[in-house]
């Protein structure tokens, strides 16, 4: 298409702008020098080797995995409840109730962090732990799960479930044997997206973490020390690859879900 040429060049330049910071991570992760600037000093893999020997980092990774897995499961369960209720039933105050569940999507994260900190510490007198981080992360991941799962539930053909009930299944049986398998791709996608968001979330974890830091909180501490930066770059490279793999898998399941329910692919999970 001739008239789109200028736009296409702009789009490619824009993609370069989007990927520029991400592309720097692997470049400096393999650079044999502690100063993060050009010219490069030669190729090395020593920063990756060093990653293996930092115990505090391994602890942070374990903490983050615990938080992200727990968050993913909780948010997806909440997401299934809310999405099913929204797509299948009419009930009073529906808009307001679903609105409240979706609010964390547009709330600055620092507000969520501060508000939970006040409630947990000042008012309830509890101490901070990885569980308080899970509470905050579940709050912000649930809206994403609801959005993904609503698309799955809305794409369902209601008559399939009705057919199962006509053929003698109970409502519960029809849900577990017919509906749930059809929305499985959406569930997998919601799990992966919630996991990815939680794994990367910093500001809520910064406020709600106790003595056990999550990975982003640990990273934040490291950014103050210039000599630690190359190791951080190596870690960043691994994280980028990890989130790429997770997202590709999530996208694969989302598309399969779209195909399975026979809907038109509108692209993207947001």
């Amino acid at each position, binding site marked *: 298409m001739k008239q789109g040429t200028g*736009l296409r060049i702009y789009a490619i330049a824009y993609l370069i702008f989007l990927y520029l910071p991400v592309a720097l991570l692997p470049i400096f992760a393999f650079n044999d020098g502690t100063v993060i600037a*050009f010219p490069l000093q030669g190729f090395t893999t020593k920063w990756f080797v060093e990653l293996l020997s930092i115990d505090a980092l391994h602890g942070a990774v374990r903490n983050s995995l615990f938080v992200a897995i727990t968050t993913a499961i909780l948010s997806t369960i909440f997401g299934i409840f809310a999405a099913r209720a929204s797509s299948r*039933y*009419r009930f009073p105050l529906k808009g307001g109730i679903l609105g409240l*569940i979706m609010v964390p999507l547009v709330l600055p994260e620092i507000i969520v962090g*501060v508000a*939970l900190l006040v409630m947990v510490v000042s008012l309830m007198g509890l101490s901070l732990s990885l569980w308080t981080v899970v509470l905050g992360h579940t*709050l912000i991941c649930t809206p994403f799960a609801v959005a993904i799962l609503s698309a799955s539930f809305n794409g369902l053909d209601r008559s399939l479930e009705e057919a199962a009930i006509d053929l003698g299944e109970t409502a519960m049986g029809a849900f577990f044997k017919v509906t749930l398998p059809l929305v499985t791709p959406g569930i997998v996608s919601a799990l992966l997206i919630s996991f990815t968001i939680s794994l990367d979330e910093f500001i809520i974890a910064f406020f709600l973490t106790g003595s056990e830091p999550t990975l982003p909180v640990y990273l934040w501490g490291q950014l103050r020390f210039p000599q630690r930066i190359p190791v951080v770059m190596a870690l960043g490279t691994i*994280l*980028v690859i990890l989130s790429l793999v997770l997202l590709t898998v999530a996208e694969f399941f989302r598309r399969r879900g779209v195909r399975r329910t026979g809907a038109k692919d509108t692209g993207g999970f947001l």
Partner: protein
Amino acid sequence: MRLPKGEAASGLLLVSPPLVYAVLLLAVPLGSIVLLSLWTQNFLTFDTTLTLANYAEAFTDPLYRTLMLRSLAISGSVTLATVLFAFPIAYFVSFHVAPERKALWIFLITIPFWTSYLLRVFAWKVILGFNGVLNTSLLGLGIIDEPLTFILYNANAVVITLAHAYAPFTILPIYVALEKIDRSLLEASRDLGENALVTFLRVTLPLAMPGVVAATLIVFIPTVGDYVTPVLVGGPDGRMIANMIQIQFLQLNDAPMGSALAISAMTIVAAISLLFLFLMRGFLKERA
């Protein structure tokens, strides 16, 4: 509206777990910072007499006022920049990319957003720094004689970095709005003798406005409260209100003042957003 018997009850029962969670962990905590903002810090304990003193200080203290106005200005610039630069991309993907490749483009655009936020912001520090990627490249190419210093540790750096971080958030809603436009309307405009530019301005753009409005709010609201970017690339002149909220809570141990600042920021942002929605209401009406 007549509800089938039991449907309302089933729906409410089903939605109750996430609803109870949102009430306990969102509504109650927000309520508690409102309450706390009306108390005052009395050394190690709270003085629980209700007072608006913290709010009076939040709005009159020059430091708080500067931080608040700067946060709004930075956020406004970021919003304007992201929406202006993102619109052509959304337009390109919606109108000039073959349907079977649209999902791939959207996927490519969203990927960088899913990679570590901290590290992306940090990467901008590396790009914009005195010995950074941008300066060394420009020096190497002979375009500049000495490193540019106005691009790091100030508000400009915060705007560039946030504009990058929020780019996908603007592209997606505009893209969705453009996708919904009935293409026959554009043909009709052309058939009736309007040229491409007028068709764009009078048909495409007004129909895309709901997406533009959504994109504006999706960027403006969270960026006002950004904490990481000002600390890493902002320098002293690029600090924002979230940095002060954090200092009040975690360093000065004055949670009531921190709460008052947080509530004030949220209220101002909500007021601006509602005013914006009011001004844009003409574009948001449902079209038959």
